[in-house]
């Protein structure tokens, strides 16, 4: 059984990674064919590195993802705390329902609805310059919020009240009890909310598609525009680089995490 389960995991991950592996291998293919690997070459990478537009799109995407994830995490964490402690269901329920709308709604509807709002505001202000970083930031924070709530809220719900009470019986003030006992329980939720926001923001194409302007392009929008009609191999090079960078980040985060764990355990023993 143990062996079979390992085989199953291996098989699914193998299938999940074949297209990505093929993409990486063929990004080094000199012939621009997807069927046959004819020779090793960096030409697509060279083409990519001479593309000024790609760099500005990357910069835009990172700025947008970091800022929207940070704002959404702060808003969402405090929101989850407030909503969790809120007693009045007739206020809490509508807010929760409203919060979850972008998650339940298809991205395309969220994108379209925000576009209609911004179009209306732009018409009201009589400006045509509204669309750009601002509208993208608002849209990204908005669709990140429910995911932050989704990952933080259960942590608040799972908090054992008696733990905090025990801490206070043992001499902690309520705020100490919060920071020393409750917060460490919640932090994993906050971190996963932050990571998820960052992922979703970097990943988002559909909503951005509706609320961006041609002079502020994110990476997915750039990829979409570049490959709308034909496959461009420099985009495979770009994707391969993205995969590599993400892998390194994830490994570093993981490694740093486990190193800190070990340190913590050692400290505990002393």
């Amino acid at each position, binding site marked *: 059984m143990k062996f079979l389960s390992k085989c199953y995991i291996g098989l699914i991950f193998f299938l999940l990674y074949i297209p990505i592996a093929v993409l990486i291998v063929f990004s080094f293919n000199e012939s621009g064919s997807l069927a046959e690997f004819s020779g090793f070459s960096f030409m697509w990478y060279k083409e990519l590195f001479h593309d000024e537009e790609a760099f500005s799109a990357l910069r835009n995407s990172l700025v947008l993802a970091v800022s929207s994830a940070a704002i959404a995490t702060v808003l969402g964490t405090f929101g989850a705390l407030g909503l969790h402690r809120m007693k009045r269901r007739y206020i809490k329920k509508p807010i929760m329902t409203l919060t979850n709308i972008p998650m339940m709604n298809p991205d395309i*509807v969220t994108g379209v609805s925000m576009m209609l709002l911004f179009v209306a505001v732009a018409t009201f202000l009589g400006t045509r310059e509204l669309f750009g970083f601002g509208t993208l930031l608002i849209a990204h924070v908005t669709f990140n919020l429910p995911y932050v709530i989704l990952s933080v809220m259960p942590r608040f719900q799972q908090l054992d009240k008696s733990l905090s009470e025990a801490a206070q019986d043992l001499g902690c003030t309520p705020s100490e009890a919060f920071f020393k006992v409750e917060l460490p329980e919640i932090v994993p939720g906050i971190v996963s909310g932050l990571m998820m926001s960052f992922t979703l923001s970097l990943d988002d194409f559909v909503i951005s598609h509706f609320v961006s302007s041609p002079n502020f392009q994110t990476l997915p929008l750039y990829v979409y525009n570049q490959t709308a009609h034909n496959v461009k191999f420099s985009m495979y090079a770009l994707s391969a680089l993205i995969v590599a960078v993400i892998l390194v980040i994830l490994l570093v985060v993981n490694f740093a995490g486990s190193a800190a764990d070990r340190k913590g355990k050692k400290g505990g023993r002393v």
Partner: protein
Amino acid sequence: MKDLSLRRKEPPPATRKGQAQRNIFQKLAAVPHTVWTVMFIAAPMLFVLYFAFTDAEGNFSFANITNLGQYTNVFILSIAFALIATAVCLVIGYPLAYFMSRQSLRAQKVLMVLIMLPMWCNLLIRTYALMALLDNGGLLNSLLGKLGLEPLPIVGSYFGVILGMVYDFLPYMVLPIFTAMTKLDYRYIEASHDLGCNNLQTMTKVVMPLTLSGVVSGVTMVFVPSISTFYISQKLGAGKIDLVGDTIERLFQNVSTYNVGAAMSLVMMILILISLTIMNKFSDEEGGMVP
């Protein structure tokens, strides 16, 4: 005596003051979030409603809704595809999450990284990668050709589109279920074995109810993007398969069809809200039985 015992129960003044401050802070904590959701979630929805029920001149009209009859087939196809993709993701993803959670902590960490990696990798890229592999001029068909087999026309078929949905969204199913699994206290499973359950009974009576919240999140996160996608159907459907997403995207490219597009978005939104409400109700009831 009675008076004394009552007084003893009161917390010391300093603690009470801290508690009060904390309560005020906690009550205000939700305010910025609430303001944001009203401005950027509620208001845009009202604009969808407004556009759906007005004509191009801004007069009230039901014409947009009644005109949607011509898109019935598109709706049916989209719903069917999304349901199949979600079911396949659940059938593949649930055992995967379960087996992953039974590995050593070290292995779990590695697997977690491996499941997050495709999630971080853009959907357009993943879809392109899959298309490149399965396309007529792609690696799979060229290998089949070398073996003397017929090429598989996956791109441009219903199967191709559903495969694309499953491939793109499987990690979104696995991750929440895996999270629920890791939170599951293993002693529940031991207890159920001690109380005479076999593996299957433990699975259906202990593990599944306790991880249902993860399943609900997973299903939501797969079903919603599947039903809304226009990119997967464009690429893996080779432009031959028209889903609701494709239609809405097309309608919003032209100012004159904003109203029909809004009506179509509204109908899709309502369909999804109904199905998710039913699902959430079901999971709430199940959740109620679990301590």
